[in-house]
């Protein structure tokens, strides 16, 4: 996007690009044998991000005209990954899962309309990105509300899913204004620099938070319920004998 970057910007961009490897390494080190579907989705999402960086670089260097297609596809795929993660991460209950499917369908339809009819494949998908940010932020807030309502005695920050949710919440909150302004300001030199700084910084933050998520332990069983059951069994034994 920027032709002559200052050295500091190049460094930030480079760190941002390589930071994608960080959660991948952590996943392979600590969660390789984990069968949680939500974590697997995030693993594939990280791989997709790395592939997207490579494709983005190729388009930037060779087919700059078509780079907006990469951005548009990235927006849709990122949202799809998040919806899939959310689908698995949310506690059982048909309504919210159906809701996620509905939101995804709506978003997909909207992004297609925006991409083919409004933008006509030659501009940054600011509106779609903005809508994506709003949907994901709302879903993250709903997840946190559900965690608050739940009677689980497990600290919310000791689960991987919580860290993944706050990763998306912080990343998309931070880049929300950036994305909605990109379409109009993309040719502004100062904006290009700001774009690189903000996007790279939040990308690094996202990868650091995802790495923390990969460090979290498995959900322990509810010890108290077991303890109460033991008490009841002892009482029952005493009274029956």
């Amino acid at each position, binding site marked *: 996007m920027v032709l002559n970057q200052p050295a500091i910007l190049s460094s930030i961009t480079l760190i941002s690009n390589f930071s994608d490897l960080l959660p991948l390494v952590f996943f392979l080190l600590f969660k390789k044998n984990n069968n949680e579907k939500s974590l697997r989705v995030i693993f594939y999402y990280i791989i997709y991000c790395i592939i997207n960086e490579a494709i983005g670089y190729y388009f930037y260097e060779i087919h700059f005209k078509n780079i907006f297609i990469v951005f548009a596809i990235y927006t849709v795929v990122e949202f799809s990954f998040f919806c899939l993660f959310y689908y698995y991460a949310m506690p059982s209950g048909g309504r919210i899962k159906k809701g996620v499917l509905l939101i995804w369908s709506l978003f997909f339809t909207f992004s297609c309309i925006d991409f083919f009819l409004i933008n006509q494949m030659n501009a940054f998908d600011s509106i779609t990105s903005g809508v994506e940010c709003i949907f994901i932020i709302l879903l993250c807030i709903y997840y946190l509300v559900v965690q608050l309502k739940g009677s689980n*005695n497990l600290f919310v920050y000791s689960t991987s899913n919580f860290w993944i949710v706050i990763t998306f919440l912080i990343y998309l909150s931070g880049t929300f204004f950036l994305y909605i302004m990109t379409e109009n300001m993309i040719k502004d030199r100062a904006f290009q620099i700001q774009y690189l700084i903000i996007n790279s910084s939040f990308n690094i933050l996202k990868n650091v938070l995802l790495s923390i998520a990969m460090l979290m332990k498995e959900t322990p069983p509810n010890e108290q319920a077991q303890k109460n059951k033991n008490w009841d069994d002892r009482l029952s034994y005493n009274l029956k004998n």
Partner: protein
Amino acid sequence: MYFLQASGNSYGLSNVLIFGTIGMFVMAITLVSVVVFHQRRVIKFNKQLQKMEEEKQQMLLKASINFQEEERQRIAADLHDDAGPLLATARLYLNENLIHQEPAIQLQSIFSAKQIIDDSIQLIRNISHSLMPPTLKNFGLESAMKDLFEKINGSGVINASTRFHDNRERLREDQELLVFRILQELVTNIIKHSCAGFIHLTQNVQGNFSYFRIHHDGKGILQEEFEKLNYDSGGLGLKNIESRIKVLKGNISFDIDSTQTYYKVTIEVPREPARN
């Protein structure tokens, strides 16, 4: 001029971008912090509740163990103080010198020993009945309660009656015994503490639950007082009621009727019909 305007506009938008980004970021961090701190407080509160529940469980378990020990001590005392001397006396009558006695004295001794052995049998039967009333085992809860109330009515001080509306299907044997013990304890408490003139027990079935309700016109207790007494260190009887209710997975409630005249104790027991 155009350049300046464009630059000014760009500068303004740049500010929007920076402040907007910072604002959103701060908002997200605040939201996460609020959730984390709120959840910490909730967990702290839940842990306190769990601790209290654990203490209560411990108290109930202790009460049930104490009750068991008291029961054992009572049986031991009955056997030692009553059955022991009776059998020892019978042995005295049937000692080795009996064969050297005259036939009339021998007959007299054998008759006395027989009488003492009969008394011992009766005593042991009473102990056995107090452990497991035979009427309860053979004829069910209704008959057992009628038996108990007949004995109470015999004193002439209090009028006790019972009515079972739906007793087509008996509860499981262990459930019946637990309900019987609860009702027995409640009736004993009413007689001991309430100065009631009458006690009336009714039974009914609704869905998968059996309901037992005791009415009396004495000075009773309400739910709040029951909970309070349950947490106190003394009062084994109420704790035993509570622990038996827990084993039955039922509920107990203490209240007073709308005219403030009769106290009511209602027991709700999930129905588990007897296995044939």
